[in-house]
C-alpha cells in the first residue's frame, strides 16, 4: 500500500485556504445524524470534542481520568507559540514554520507545519475569548517570552501553568457542550479496541473502569487523541496513567505507526533520587531564559561535590564550565532540547555530574538574581551596592516569574533554589512519533483520525518548546473540524451504526478474553515489575544515545520480556470491579510491543536526527549527522502480527520551501 | 445568618453603651432605660424586630448546623480541625448555644420582670427604678459568674462571627484588613466590657 499524504497542490501559503474552500461540507441539519467518538480529552481531544459539538455533531468523549480536566496536557508549563509578532521582533508565519521545520531537524511534512503556523494566531484569539488568563504586561496587553531554538519572543504563557490554563479553557468549552447535551462524556473509561466495519472505523470497545463492564460504542468516525507513548520508558515526565493503548490498538487494526524512535528527552528535569522513583518532574524550559547551565570544569571538583565535600557556591567562575554557552555561543542556554540534553549527558558521561549518581548538572539563577536585583535597585533608586538588598530584589523578580516551579523543586529536593543552584538532568518528555496521518489527520484506516501528540505529523525528529500546546489546539480547534467534515459528508444517510454487528461482537470478545487471561494468570510478579524492566532496557539501550549493537540487544530483550510477562504477570482483584492493576496490565502489554517496534525503527534509521541520536553517526565535535539522501522520509510501520514482522512504508519528505542544511545553533 | 448577625451586633453595641453608662452615672442610666422602656417606637417596632432577629439567627443556626452535618454522613476517623481553622470558627454552634442559654437567663432576669412590671401587673411609672434593679441582680455571685462565662463564649462567637458576617456579604477590599482588626477588637472589648460592668456592680454595691 502506497502512502498518500493528500497534501493539496498550490503554493505553501495558499494550500490550507484553498483546501478549506473546496472540501465537502455537512449541512447543519445533517450533522445531528452523525456520531463522533473522541478518545482522550486533553488539549487536542478536548478542543476537538467541543468544536465538533458546537458544529452540531453528536460527540462521545472517553478518558481514563475521572474528569477531562485531568488530562496530562495540564502539566505543560512553559507556554504556547504563536506567530503574532506582538513584540515586533520580526516574527511571521513563515518564521514559525521555518523554525519548526529546522527544530524538527527536517523530518516533518512541510504542508502540515505551515498550516500549524498559520492557525497559531487563531489559537491565542480563541483562548483569550474563552477567558484563559494568559500573562499580561502592565499596559494590559499580552506578554511573551522566548523559548529554546528560536530568535524571537513568540511564546504566550500563564506563569508556569500554561498547559493547565489552556486545558481548562478547552474543558470549559466542553462543559458548555455537555450542558447542552451535545457531548456525552465517558470519564473513567478506557478504550480497549477499535471496531472496523467494511474497512471503516465505526466504533470502539471500552471498559468502564469503575464497574469493569465492557461496553460497545458506535460512531461514524473515531478520533484518537490519547497522547504520546513516553511511558514505555517507565520513568518519564508523563502522568502515571498516560498510555499508548488506544494508539496501539488502532495500529493493530491497520493504522500505520510512524517514526516511533523520535522521542524527546527534555533537558531540565529533576534528577532521579533512588530506586523507588515512580516518575520524573519537569522544570519548565522557560527556566533556561534566566538560568545558566554548568558543571565543574575540573574533574576533582565534580568528585568533591558528589562526595559532599564541596558546595557549588565554593567554585569560582573560572572553575565552572558553562558548557552550552561555550559550545553554542549564539543560542547559549537556549539551544533546542535535543541539543541541550545530549550536551548534559556528554558532560555527565565524562565524569562531571554533580549529584550522588553523577547524573545531574546545575541550573544556576545567581547571575539572573544579580541582574534583576540591580535593575530593580536602579528603577527604585535604591543602593545598588547593598548585596543583600540586590539579592532580595532579584529573588523577588525571579519568584514572580517562576515561583511555582521553585516551590515545586524545593518540595521534591528539599533544597532552596534561590540560594543554591538547581540540579537537573534530562528525562523522557514527549514523543514526536505516533500514528501516521495524512494532511486530513486521518490514519490509514478510513474514519479513524489521530490528533495532537498521538499523531506524528508536525514536529519531525524534535519538537521545539511551546509547540506541543500549539499543535494540540491547532488540530482540535482549527484543523480536524474541517477535515473530518470532508470525510463524513457521504455518511449523512448512513444512520446510526448498530453495535450488534459481528465486528463489535468479535472485538468485544477479544477484549474480554485478554482481561480474563490476565486475571487468571496467577503469575509471580506485579505489572510494575515488568514495566520497570522494560523501562530500564529502553533507557539504557534506546535512550538518549543509541547504537546498532544496543538496539539489536534491546529488540531481543524486549521480546523475551514480553513472553515472560504473559507467562508470569500477576494481576490481583477481579475483572468486574475497579481494578487499577488490571488497567496497568493492559497498558504495559501494549508498551511491550511498542517498545520493540521503537527499537526496530531506531535500528533501521542509520542517521542521527533530532531526538534520535545514533552514536555511529556524529560529527567530530559530537553533533548529530543527518543523512538526507537516504533518510529524508517518514518511516510508517504496518502491523503484521508481531513487532518484528512489521513492514516499513516510506513517505518521502519533499522540501520545496526550505533548504535542507545542517542544523546549527553555534 | 450574616445579616441577622450584623443586626445583632449593632444591637449589642447599643446595649453595651447604655450599660456602660451605669458605671458612670446612675441618673443617666435611668433616663436612658426609661426612654428605651417607654418609647413606643422602641417598644412596639424595634423590640419585635429584635426578637425576630434573635429567633431567626438561632433557628437558622441550628438549620445550618444540621444541613452541614448531613453533608458528611460518614465522618473521619481522624480529623485535625485545629490544623487549619480556629476553635471559635469551628464551634459556633457551641458558643451559640451557650449564648442562647444565657439569653434565656437574661430574659428571665430582666425582660420578663420588665414585661410583668409594665404590662401584666401594670405598675406605675417609676423613672428611677432601673439602676437599683440592675445592681440588685448582680448581688448573687452565681449569677455574676454565669454572666461572665457566657460573655467569654460570646467573645468567641463574635471573634469569628463579626468578620464572617462581612465575608458572607462579600466585603473584600483594601479596607478589609482594617475591618478584620476592628472585628477582633469588637469581639474583645464588648464582651469583656460587659464582664467588667457585671463585676463592677457585683463588687461595688454589696
Amino acid at each position, binding site marked *: 500500500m502506497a502512502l498518500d499524504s493528500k497534501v493539496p497542490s498550490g503554493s505553501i501559503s495558499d494550500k490550507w485556504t484553498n483546501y478549506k474552500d473546496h472540501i465537502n461540507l455537512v449541512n447543519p441539519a445533517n450533522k445531528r445524524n452523525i456520531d463522533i467518538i473522541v478518545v482522550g480529552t486533553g488539549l487536542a481531544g478536548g478542543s476537538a470534542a467541543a468544536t465538533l459539538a*458546537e458544529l452540531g455533531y453528536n460527540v462521545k468523549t472517553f478518558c481514563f481520568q*475521572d*474528569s477531562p480536566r*485531568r488530562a*496530562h496536557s495540564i502539566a505543560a508549563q512553559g507556554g504556547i507559540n504563536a506567530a*503574532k509578532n506582538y513584540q515586533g521582533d520580526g516574527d511571521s508565519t513563515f518564521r514559525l514554520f521555518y523554525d519548526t521545520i529546522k527544530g524538527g531537524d527536517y523530518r516533518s511534512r512541510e504542508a502540515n507545519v505551515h498550516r500549524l503556523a498559520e492557525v497559531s494566531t*487563531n489559537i491565542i484569539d480563541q483562548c*483569550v*475569548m*474563552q*477567558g*484563559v*488568563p*494568559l500573562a*499580561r504586561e*502592565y499596559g494590559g*496587553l*499580552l506578554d511573551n517570552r522566548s523559548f529554546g531554538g528560536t530568535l524571537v519572543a513568540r511564546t504566550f504563557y*500563564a506563569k508556569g*501553568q500554561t498547559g*493547565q490554563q489552556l486545558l481548562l479553557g478547552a474543558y*470549559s*468549552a466542553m*462543559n458548555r457542550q455537555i*450542558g447542552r447535551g451535545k457531548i456525552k462524556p465517558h*470519564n473513567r473509561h478506557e478504550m480497549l479496541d477499535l471496531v472496523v466495519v467494511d474497512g471503516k472505523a465505526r466504533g470502539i470497545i471500552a471498559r468502564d473502569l469503575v464497574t469493569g463492564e465492557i461496553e460497545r460504542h458506535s460512531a461514524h468516525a473515531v478520533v484518537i487523541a490519547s497522547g504520546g507513548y513516553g511511558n514505555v520508558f517507565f520513568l518519564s515526565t508523563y502522568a502515571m496513567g498516560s498510555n499508548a493503548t488506544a494508539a496501539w490498538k488502532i495500529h493493530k487494526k491497520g493504522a500505520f505507526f510512524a517514526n516511533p524512535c523520535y522521542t524527546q528527552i527534555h533537558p531540565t528535569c529533576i534528577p532521579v*533520587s533512588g530506586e*523507588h522513583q*515512580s*516518575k520524573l*518532574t519537569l522544570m519548565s524550559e522557560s527556566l533556561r531564559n534566566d538560568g545558566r547551565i554548568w558543571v565543574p570544569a575540573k574533574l576533582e571538583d565534580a568528585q568533591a561535590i558528589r562526595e559532599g565535600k564541596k558546595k557549588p557556591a565554593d567554585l569560582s567562575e573560572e572553575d565552572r564550565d558553562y558548557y552550552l554557552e561555550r559550545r553554542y555561543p549564539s543560542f547559549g542556554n537556549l539551544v533546542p532540547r535535543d541539543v541541550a540534553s545530549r550536551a548534559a549527558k556528554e558532560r555527565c558521561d565524562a565524569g562531571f555530574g554533580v549529584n550522588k549518581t553523577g547524573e545531574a548538572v546545575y541550573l544556576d539563577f545567581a547571575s539572573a538574581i544579580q541582574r534583576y536585583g540591580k535593575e530593580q535597585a536602579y528603577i527604585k533608586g535604591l543602593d545598588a551596592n547593598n548585596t543583600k538588598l540586590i539579592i532580595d530584589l532579584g529573588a523577588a523578580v525571579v519568584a514572580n516569574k517562576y515561583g511555582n516551579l521553585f*516551590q515545586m523543586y524545593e*518540595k521534591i529536593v528539599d533544597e532552596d533554589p534561590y540560594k543554591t543552584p538547581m540540579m537537573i538532568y534530562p528525562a523522557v518528555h514527549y514523543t514526536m512519533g505516533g500514528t501516521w496521518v495524512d494532511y486530513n489527520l486521518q490514519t490509514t484506516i478510513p474514519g479513524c483520525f489521530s490528533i495532537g501528540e498521538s499523531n506524528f505529523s508536525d514536529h519531525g525528529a524534535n519538537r521545539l518548546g511551546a509547540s506541543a500546546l500549539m499543535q494540540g489546539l491547532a488540530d482540535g*480547534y*482549527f484543523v480536524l473540524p474541517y477535515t473530518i467534515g470532508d470525510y463524513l459528508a457521504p455518511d449523512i444517510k448512513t444512520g446510526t451504526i448498530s453495535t450488534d454487528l459481528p465486528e463489535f461482537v468479535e472485538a468485544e470478545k477479544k477484549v474480554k478474553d485478554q482481561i480474563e487471561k490476565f486475571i487468571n494468570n496467577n503469575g509471580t510478579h*506485579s505489572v*510494575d515489575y515488568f514495566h520497570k524492566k522494560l523501562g530500564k532496557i529502553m533507557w539504557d539501550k534506546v535512550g538518549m544515545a543509541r547504537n546498532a549493537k544496543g538496539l539489536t540487544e534491546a529488540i531481543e530483550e524486549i521480546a523475551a520480556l514480553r513472553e515472560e510477562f504473559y507467562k508470569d504477570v*500477576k494481576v*490481583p*482483584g477481579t475483572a468486574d*470491579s*475497579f481494578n487499577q*492493576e488490571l488497567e496497568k496490565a493492559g497498558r504495559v502489554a501494549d508498551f511491550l510491543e511498542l517498545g520493540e517496534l521503537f527499537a526496530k525503527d531506531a535500528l533501521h534509521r542509520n542517521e542521527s536526527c533530532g531526538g534520535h541520536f545514533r552514536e555511529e553517526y556524529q560529527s567530530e565535535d559530537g553533533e548529530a549527522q543527518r543523512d538526507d539522501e537516504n533518510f529524508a522520509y517518514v518511516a510508517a510501520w504496518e502491523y503484521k502480527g508481531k513487532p518484528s514482522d512489521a513492514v516499513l512504508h516510506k513517505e518521502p519528505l519533499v522540501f520545496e520551501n526550505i533548504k535542507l542544511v545542517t542544523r546549527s545553533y553555534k | 445568618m450574616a445579616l441577622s448577625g450584623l443586626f445583632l451586633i449593632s444591637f449589642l453595641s447599643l446595649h453595651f453603651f447604655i450599660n456602660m453608662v451605669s458605671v458612670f452615672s446612675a441618673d443617666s442610666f435611668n433616663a436612658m432605660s426609661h426612654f428605651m422602656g417607654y418609647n413606643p417606637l422602641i417598644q412596639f417596632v424595634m423590640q419585635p424586630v429584635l426578637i425576630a432577629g434573635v429567633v431567626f439567627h438561632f433557628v437558622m443556626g441550628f438549620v445550618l448546623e444540621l444541613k*452541614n452535618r448531613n*453533608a*458528611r454522613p460518614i*465522618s473521619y*476517623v481522624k*480529623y485535625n480541625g485545629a*490544623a*487549619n*481553622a480556629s476553635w471559635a470558627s*469551628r464551634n459556633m454552634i457551641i458558643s451559640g448555644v451557650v449564648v442562647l442559654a444565657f439569653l434565656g437567663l437574661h430574659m428571665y432576669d430582666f425582660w420578663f420582670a420588665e414585661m410583668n412590671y409594665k404590662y401584666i401587673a401594670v405598675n406605675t411609672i417609676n423613672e428611677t427604678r432601673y439602676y437599683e434593679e440592675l445592681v440588685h441582680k448582680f448581688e448573687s455571685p452565681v449569677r455574676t459568674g454565669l454572666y461572665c462565662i457566657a460573655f467569654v463564649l460570646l467573645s468567641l462567637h463574635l471573634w469569628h462571627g463579626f468578620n464572617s458576617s462581612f*465575608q*458572607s*456579604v*462579600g*466585603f*473584600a477590599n483594601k479596607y*478589609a484588613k482594617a475591618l478584620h482588626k476592628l472585628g477582633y477588637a469588637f469581639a474583645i472589648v464588648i464582651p469583656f466590657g460587659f464582664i467588667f460592668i457585671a463585676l463592677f456592680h457585683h463588687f461595688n454595691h454589696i
Partner: protein
Amino acid sequence: MKLTLQIWRQKNAKAEGKIVEYPIDGIEEDMSFLEMLDVLNEQLINKGDEPVSFDHDCREGICGSCSLFINGEAHGPDRGIPTCQLHMRMFKDGDTIFIEPFRAAAFPVIKDLVVDRSAFDRIQHAGGFVSVNTSGNPVDANTIPIPKHDADRAFDAATCIGCGACVATCKNSSAMLFVAAKVSQYALLPQGRVEATDRVLNMVAQMDAEGFGNCTNTGACEVECPKGISLDYIAQMNREYLSASIKG
C-alpha cells in the same frame, strides 16, 4: 523508616469499609507519599492481597487526581501541595499515619481511597465557561486590554486543580472555594462579565443540588488548598451572588 499505616479499605461503593492496619518498613525520606503507597502495594500484591486503590496521575501537583486525608488533614501535613508532592521527610520513624478517603456526601467512595468527584464537573457544566464558539475569526487577542492586576487575579483563581481538598477539609463539606474560584476567574475578565449573572446563579444552584454543605467561613479550605486559593474569592462570589439575586 518504620511506620504503621491505618488505611481505609472498602471493596466498592456499597460495601462497608473499615480501617486496616499495615506495618511498613524501609521507607526513605526522599520518597513521595504515593511512592510509599507504591511500596506497600507491591508488598500486598506479592503476598497475594489486593493492593490499596487510590487516585493519582501526574504526580507533579497539577492534575488534581490525588486526594487522601492524611492524619486528619487533606493532602497531609505539608502546605501548598497536593498529596503527590508530599514527601516522607515530613514524617518520623515510628509514626502512625491514618489515611482516609476525602469524605463528603457529594464525594461517594468508589473503592478504598478513591472517591467520585464528578459533582465538581456537573457544577462546571452549569456555567463554568464563556459562551464562545470556535470560529477561527474572533477579534484579535489584544483588542481588549485587561489590567494586569485583574488578569493576575483571574489567573490566581484559575489555578484551582479541582482536587476537592476544600470540601474534604471543611467541617461543613462546603464547595464554596472551588465554585468561587471559577466564578471569580470569569467575573474578573471582560470576556466572562457578559454572562456573570446567570453563571453565578446556575453554578451555586448546582452546588446546592449536589449536597455540599454551607460555608461558615472557617477558612480551613484556604489553608489546605494546594494552590493557596484565597478566601477573598468567596467574598467576591458572595458579592456576585447577592447582586445577581437582586437583578434576578
